[in-house]
């Protein structure tokens, strides 16, 4: 293999992009030869179009449909979406054999039918054109055979590094997959002295260590919010990203609507607003150090029965409330706090008597819980000392996330990165082996509760690629065994018969694999909670809620998904509290130099209401260098600051950076109509259940001049429970995936032209330092007296017989008058042919939804294609199928109920009959088919507001 060194810079770059160019470049070119090559390329392009099929898999050309594929009828296959090792069960919808949509798997305990944004956006990851198309060696394209040889060389001694120095290292993220674990074990066994390091950029090591401290052994503490009456969330991610968060969100929301049953009560104390905090009945703002201090005081009060002394005023009332609900009270601590604090919280939960109810302790689902000796820092120590001669990096990106690792990697003679794209680590390693997407090969993974799912491939690899299991087998010199055989081998015992195997595949869960309960007792002696040092200014580095540790940076859906609270997109401004903004004279978009010790980066600021005053929050995961064309250079890389030590300082640079944001109004609108999100306390609700309905800012016309009820027997309607909505954005991503909603890019968002059909409005009330925050999903209201329809000069928007406000894209001439006349502003105008500009192949789109052209208005249709599918199914089978909209299906908390409001037994009819039901902007006389259930909060009367 010739090296890149001999080539001029431009050609080197081209060879990287087009691996086969390198062979061509090796030959002198003349005109005849060039023409021959061009002709060959043309012919080759044509041939490549005809899928030759892979004989052993029996793939056939799509000209004639494969068995079981009926054009126009989607197929659905179970699988799982795996993030940081933990699996969420999903169902992948295929259209003519290609995956187009992800839904939650109702039978999977970590999904319960719902999905998070990451699972929804997996379709974009799968079709990402920037995924690696072939292996690289030292940055030059290599053949797959060479990879096999290189992988086998992993085990061979390299150079002068002594064998005894346990030269082979494997670096992975958290592994729950039994098959992958077995493959790693097999390699470790074949090579004594090899070490397996598990590391996640956004880790939960402190939580793991805390549980181990508390129970004397690795343990997984899983809350069961169905059985919790009072909970205290301390800087917690329980509802947004903790393992099993979809289940927790479902359980939590199941007890939030007083009409449906008794309410729970959630207190949250946190330095910066999170979904958990916004969902709470009482949210208290405290700097991280104060949170630790509060844990200490709580420990003193609950474990030692001492009266709470010092600390914030509310602490006593909260402790009393927790104590007043023995067995049904829970404290949850976020992952950013120390192991000792976690251990202390576990002890408190035991003391509150919730074990077996409010929470329980299980065997961890990890294949092998991480050991202190196998951390990343241990690996880096060894790398720096030259003790690592071969390093397998499986689907993690430490070069981007850990500057120290990047510096040490060149000292490893043989480094192999298995990565889905030529990202930072893949480029720094000697070898880059393309990783097959989770939809492309066999695998397995466990949920947080241990339930295993077998991942079946959803498609032939789009760009070629190997799964981690295959790579490890290849290292072991056993490349012939396919991943499927290995997975089958893992589960041969439990799923002995082919029927069991198939049933497990179809169900998406392997029955009986939930982790066993541990009867480990809580340790009696726990280390005291060490108080975190307090500084004038604290920098909190948190994962970007949508890009996570940076892996989703090239996913345009997630880049353009408004962050739940700041509503910023395409970037990661530094979130600063309003007090700091005032004292420093900073405004949204002002650039500051943020320094930690000697490390310094420049980035814009964004004022985040409700953030602790001495605390600035940076979001990790942006500023990627090699994520792909979509994500490169978006935002600022803050990882270099993570491991830096020293005082945090921010200094305004005087420059201003445009920060794309989808809400353009002033951050606190006290004089906005207060009946948009109607809310009140449980006490008030008990006095007068219908009080929200009377909360009317304006006189509402009693009767409409015209009233026309659509004649069809079915009338579609929707009810959205604001008590359940936690603002997680899953519905937005689901809508985007289902309806081919285009991404417009940063510049167009800056021009206020984002296209989301469904948005989550974030509404503040109260003070800037501790505002009341509300989320309100806003989509087409399908008004019966739709103002948009009367003003359209060509009848492009009209009512159908079932009450849908339909939009006829073909008829639209683009006067945009409908948008002016929509009080809810849920119509989006396609200013450019946004869909054409998207970097996604046409086959990734939903074929049931037209891709809108330039110059037409578009909006939510209540997923009319799904209604049509159900109607067809009903006509065909005579069985009325329940229609579930994409947003409703994705919602983890079942905040959205959709159905036929003419049917008194339909869930939506029950929801609409709730005394909490109200209409947004009733004075407009639009009679929307979408109604909301107002938000009730279970305030503790003992706490002064």
């Amino acid at each position, binding site marked *: 293999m010739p090296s890149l060194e001999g080539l001029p810079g431009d050609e080197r770059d081209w060879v990287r992009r087009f691996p086969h160019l390198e062979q061509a470049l090796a030959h002198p070119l003349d005109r005849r030869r060039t023409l021959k090559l061009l002709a060959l390329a043309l012919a080759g392009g044509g041939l490549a179009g005809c899928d030759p099929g892979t004989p052993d898999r029996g793939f056939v050309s799509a000209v004639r449909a494969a068995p079981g594929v009926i054009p126009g009828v989607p197929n659905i296959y179970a699988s799982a979406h795996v993030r940081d090792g933990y699996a969420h069960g999903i169902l992948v919808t295929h259209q003519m054999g290609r995956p187009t949509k992800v839904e939650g798997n109702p039978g999977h305990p970590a999904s319960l039918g719902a999905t998070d944004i990451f699972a929804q956006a997996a379709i974009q990851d799968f079709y990402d054109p920037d995924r690696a198309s072939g292996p690289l060696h030292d940055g030059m394209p290599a053949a797959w055979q060479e990879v096999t040889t290189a992988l086998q060389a992993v085990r061979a001694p390299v150079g002068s590094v002594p064998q005894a120095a346990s030269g082979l290292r494997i670096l992975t993220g958290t592994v729950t997959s039994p098959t992958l674990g077995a493959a790693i074990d097999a390699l470790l066994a074949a090579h004594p002295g090899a070490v397996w390091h598990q590391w996640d950029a956004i880790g939960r090591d402190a939580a793991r260590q805390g549980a181990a401290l508390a129970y004397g052994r690795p343990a997984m503490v899983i809350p069961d919010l169905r059985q919790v009456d009072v909970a205290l969330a301390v800087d917690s991610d329980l509802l947004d990203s903790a393992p099993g968060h979809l289940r927790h969100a479902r359980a939590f929301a199941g007890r939030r609507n007083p009409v449906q049953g008794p309410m729970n009560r959630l207190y949250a104390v946190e330095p910066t607003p999170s979904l958990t905090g916004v969902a709470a009945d009482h949210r208290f703002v405290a700097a991280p150090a104060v949170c630790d201090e509060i844990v200490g005081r709580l420990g003193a009060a609950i474990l030692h029965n001492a009266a709470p002394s010092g600390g914030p005023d509310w602490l006593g009332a909260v402790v009393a409330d927790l104590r007043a609900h023995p067995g049904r009270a829970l404290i949850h601590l976020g992952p950013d706090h120390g192991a000792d604090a976690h251990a202390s919280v576990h002890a408190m939960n035991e003391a509150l008597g919730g074990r077996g109810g409010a929470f329980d302790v299980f065997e961890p689902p990890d294949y092998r819980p991480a050991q202190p000796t196998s951390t990343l820092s241990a690996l880096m120590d060894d790398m720096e000392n030259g003790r690592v001669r071969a390093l397998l990096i499986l689907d993690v990106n430490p070069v981007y996330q850990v500057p120290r690792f990047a510096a040490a990697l060149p000292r490893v003679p043989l480094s192999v990165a298995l990565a889905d794209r030529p990202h930072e680590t893949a480029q720094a390693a000697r070898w880059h082996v393309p990783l097959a997407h989770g939809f492309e090969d066999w695998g397995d993974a466990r949920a947080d509760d241990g339930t295993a799912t077998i991942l079946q491939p959803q498609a032939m690899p789009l760009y070629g690629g190997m799964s981690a299991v295959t790579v490890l087998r290849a290292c072991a010199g056993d490349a012939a065994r396919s991943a499927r055989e290995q997975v089958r081998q893992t589960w041969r015992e439990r799923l002995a018969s082919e029927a069991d195997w198939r049933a497990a595949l179809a169900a998406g869960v392997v029955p009986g694999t939930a982790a066993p309960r541990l009867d480990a007792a809580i340790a009696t002696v726990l280390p005291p909670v060490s108080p975190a040092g307090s500084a004038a200014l604290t920098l909190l580095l948190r994962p970007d809620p949508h890009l996570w540790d940076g892996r989703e940076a090239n996913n345009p859906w997630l880049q353009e998904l408004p962050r739940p609270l700041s509503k910023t997109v395409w970037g990661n401004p530094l979130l600063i509290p309003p007090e700091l903004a005032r004292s420093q004279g900073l405004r949204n978009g002002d650039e500051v130099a943020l320094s930690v010790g000697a490390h310094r980066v420049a980035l814009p600021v964004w004022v985040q209401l409700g953030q602790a005053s001495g605390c600035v929050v940076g979001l990790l995961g942006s500023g990627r260098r090699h994520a792909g064309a979509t994500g490169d250079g978006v935002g600022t890389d803050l990882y270099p600051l993570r491991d830096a030590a020293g005082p945090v300082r921010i200094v305004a640079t005087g420059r201003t950076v445009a920060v794309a944001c989808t*809400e*353009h*109004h002033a951050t606190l*609108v006290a*004089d*906005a*109509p207060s009946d*948009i999100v109607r809310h009140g306390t449980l006490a008030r609700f008990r006095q007068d259940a219908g009080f929200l309905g009377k909360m009317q*800012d*304006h*006189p509402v016309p009693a009767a409409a001049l015209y009233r026309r009820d659509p004649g069809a027997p079915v009338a579609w309607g929707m009810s959205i429970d604001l008590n359940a909505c936690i603002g997680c954005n899953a519905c937005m991503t689901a809508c985007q995936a289902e309806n081919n909603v285009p991404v417009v890019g940063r510049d*167009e968002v800056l*021009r*206020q*032209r*984002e296209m989301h059909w469904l*948005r989550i*409005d*974030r*509404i503040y009330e109260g003070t800037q330092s501790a505002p009341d925050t509300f989320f*309100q999903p*806003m989509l087409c209201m399908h008004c019966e007296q739709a*103002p948009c329809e*009367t*003003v*359209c*000069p*060509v*009848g492009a928007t009209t009512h159908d017989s079932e009450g849908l406000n339909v939009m006829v894209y073909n*008829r*639209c*001439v*683009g*006067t*945009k*008058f409908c*948008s*002016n*006349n*929509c*009080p*809810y*502003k849920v119509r*989006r*105008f*396609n*200013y*450019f*042919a946004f869909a054409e500009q998207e970097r996604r192949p046409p086959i990734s789109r939903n074929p049931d939804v037209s891709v809108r*052209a*330039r*110059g*037409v*208005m578009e909006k939510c249709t209540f997923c009319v294609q799904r209604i049509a599918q159900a109607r067809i199914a009903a006509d065909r089978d005579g069985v009325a199928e329940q229609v579930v909209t994409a947003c409703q299906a994705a919602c983890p908390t079942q905040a959205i109920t959709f159905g036929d409001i003419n049917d008194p037994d339909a869930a939506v009819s029950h929801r609409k009959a709730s005394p909490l039901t109200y209409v*947004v*902007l009733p*004075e*407009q006389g639009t009679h929307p088919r979408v109604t909301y259930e107002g938000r009730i909060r279970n305030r503790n009367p003992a706490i002064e507001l």
Partner: protein
Amino acid sequence: MSGPAAVAPVVAPGETAQSLTERICAVTLREGARPWTPLWWWAALAVSLGLLGMGVIAVGWLFYAGLGIWGIDWPVVWGLDILNYVWWIAIASGGTFISALFFLLGVEWRTALNRLAESLTLCAALCAAIFPILHLGRPWFFYWLFPYPNTMGLWAQFRSPLVWDFFAILTYVLASILFWYFGLLPDLATLRDRAQGQGRRVFYGVLALGFRGSGRQWRHYRAVYAVMAALMAPLVVSVHSIVGMDFAGSAATGWHSTQFPPFFVFGAALSGFAVVLLAILPLRSLLGLHAYVTERHIDVLGRLFLTSSLCVGYAYVMDAFATFYGPDEADRTMFLMRVFGLYAPVYWGTIVLNIVFPQLLWWRSVRLTQPLVWLIGLGVLVGMWLERFQIIVTSLARTQLPSTWGQYTPTLWEWSLLFGTIGLFLTAFLLIVRLMPVVAMAEMRAMLRGPA
């Protein structure tokens, strides 16, 4: 009317039908004059064509690239496009008011002005009429607004104010052209008979359609002209009412108001009189029209101008009153933002230019100081443009849900289009001034005949 203005003559003393014909025909035909076409005209045409070229480029790029090249966004989906449309259609009204309304009222001084005023109407209506097409997302389908069933049997949607607007513009443009052309027929015949060159005789002869001034022709002419004038007057009111309903028919904050139709008629009158003054004052000197457009005209126009400014001022006050008297909090929020927020300079600019400055016209000496009147007129044109900006943009930028608030900044392409239409307006007007008689000779002759 009383005071000195009432007795001032409408026509300079000593003017006869003969001298009038001579003088006006000389302006148009300029036979024997050197240079044949005045230099100021060429200079003005060059500037106008430059602006027009800019507009043509802006339209070409718009059609190629799409509406995204403009600064309109979400929620402000209407920007300079609709703004310019409303502005131009309002400018167009002045000619109709002067020509039709005052014909019906038998106001004699109108005769010297009506031709120029109607020509201004035509040119402005032409500029206005292109925006409803340009503002479409898919302008090549503009004909879908026409009243015909398409292949699917689907018609235009007649409940939409935009369809009303389509019919209003269609009628207004056609009726204005016909009214203007109809009034031109006798003068075209005069030019035909007076022109020396064969080409001009053919040109004016064809346009005159064979009008010879026969008794029969005059009999029908008078009847049709009177009825047309009687129709044009309510038509112009209806057109501006319907333009007002484009907004009032919508639920947007700041738009949903029953006073919009008359408000828009007032505004139209104000900008109409302003543009007539703007055109008349320089043309009076350039074309040597002092004998026919006398100080009396300037004075009367100044009074009308002041009156319409007061009417508009009343509408502004009522707008504020209704906002705070009414129940809608979103409306109030929007209004406060309009007055004190980001676009406050636009609001106060509107007030100062449309209401405050025209108050100077209470003084007759100001009314007769032509440069000052001209500046006030120019100010009103800018002020009316700003008024439409605050009506359209601030209303859309502050609607009922705070989560949908936004703002709007026009791009270079929108400005180019505005100046492009100014170029179109000036080009068309210069051509009319050059090729058509600038004073309605036949009517002037009848007036000079005086009461028997």
